[in-house]
């Protein structure tokens, strides 16, 4: 790889742009798509590799090409600068997530409690509207406070977020579902919420709960059965 191409690739990644590195395996010739043009079949494969977030191989005119997609990190938007959020923070980057924490309670969302994390101290509805969760975003609410959690869930449910989770007991969640239903969300939409959030590993401490949440996020991202939304819960 030419140093100049590596620099362009790293610049694209730093700018959080979706790019694919196309390598002709016979001689190592490379180009960065879409910054540089590519024949239609290669461009199509690059588009597909980025969408699937999976590397691909293509033979074009007898030449083997390797298509290496470089997507920006997945976004994990957490509402609530809670103790669990602090435990979660160091797990996110190694697992491929960029963490964004929303909490208007400024005593909680401090740089001291969350070194290096993107903190937003706006109200969740404003912050979420601006962040506009997409198919590469996960939204988790951890405040326990309907004033903060509900507006975030409302926007998350209208988005393509690949994962939505909410902290709270089954009872709490049943009440939450009733409130969100009043906002016009149907059964299918409400079933997208993972609640109680996280894989059921009998987690007790904040780091254990954080681990269960990250495990469920990985399962959802990788399409594991464990990451699928569980059967709707009936109020106790």
């Amino acid at each position: 790889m030419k140093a100049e191409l590596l620099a362009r690739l790293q610049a694209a990644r730093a700018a959080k742009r979706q790019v694919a590195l196309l390598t002709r395996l016979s001689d190592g010739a490379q180009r960065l798509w879409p910054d540089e043009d590519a024949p239609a079949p290669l461009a199509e494969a690059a588009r597909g590799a980025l969408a699937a977030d999976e590397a691909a191989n293509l033979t074009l005119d007898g030449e083997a090409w390797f298509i290496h997609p470089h997507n920006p990190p997945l976004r994990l938007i957490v509402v609530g600068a809670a103790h669990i959020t602090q435990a979660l923070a160091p797990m996110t980057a190694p697992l491929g997530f960029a963490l964004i924490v929303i909490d208007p309670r400024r005593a909680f969302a401090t740089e001291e409690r969350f070194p290096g994390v993107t903190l937003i101290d706006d109200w969740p509805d404003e912050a979420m509207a601006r962040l506009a969760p997409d198919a590469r975003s996960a939204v988790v609410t951890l405040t326990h406070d309907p004033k903060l959690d509900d507006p975030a869930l409302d926007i998350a449910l209208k988005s393509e977020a690949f994962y939505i989770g909410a902290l709270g007991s089954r009872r709490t969640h049943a009440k939450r579902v009733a409130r969100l239903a009043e906002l016009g969300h149907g059964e299918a939409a409400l079933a997208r919420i993972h609640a109680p959030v996280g894989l059921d590993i009998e987690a007790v401490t904040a780091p254990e709960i954080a681990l269960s949440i990250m495990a469920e996020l990985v399962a959802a991202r990788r399409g594991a059965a464990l990451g699928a939304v569980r059967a709707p819960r009936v109020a106790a």
Partner: protein
Amino acid sequence: MNDNEDILATAGAWAAAGEQVAIATVVETWGSSPRPAGSQLAVTMSGRMAGSVSGGCIEGAVADAAKDAMRSGTPKLLDFGISDETAWQVGLSCGGKLTVFVEPLA
């Protein structure tokens, strides 16, 4: 597929510091290979390594090939697998097969 440890940044930093660097990338896998296509290993002529292309089974052989690539300035495609009859006589205990592309950073 993006490794989250930033192998490319490490490779770039090493090169900027004057090291000779090669990058190895898994380009295809068959069966139960431990790392998916796109996994990368950066290697310097001085012997530094970052990242991985397997569970550790073939890193040594890939590092040797990487040094050859740095010397020759030519990229190379390497095949690894249990039924491999080529010069790369490194078996994968997992029973998988994979192809690794090794290229000098120039």
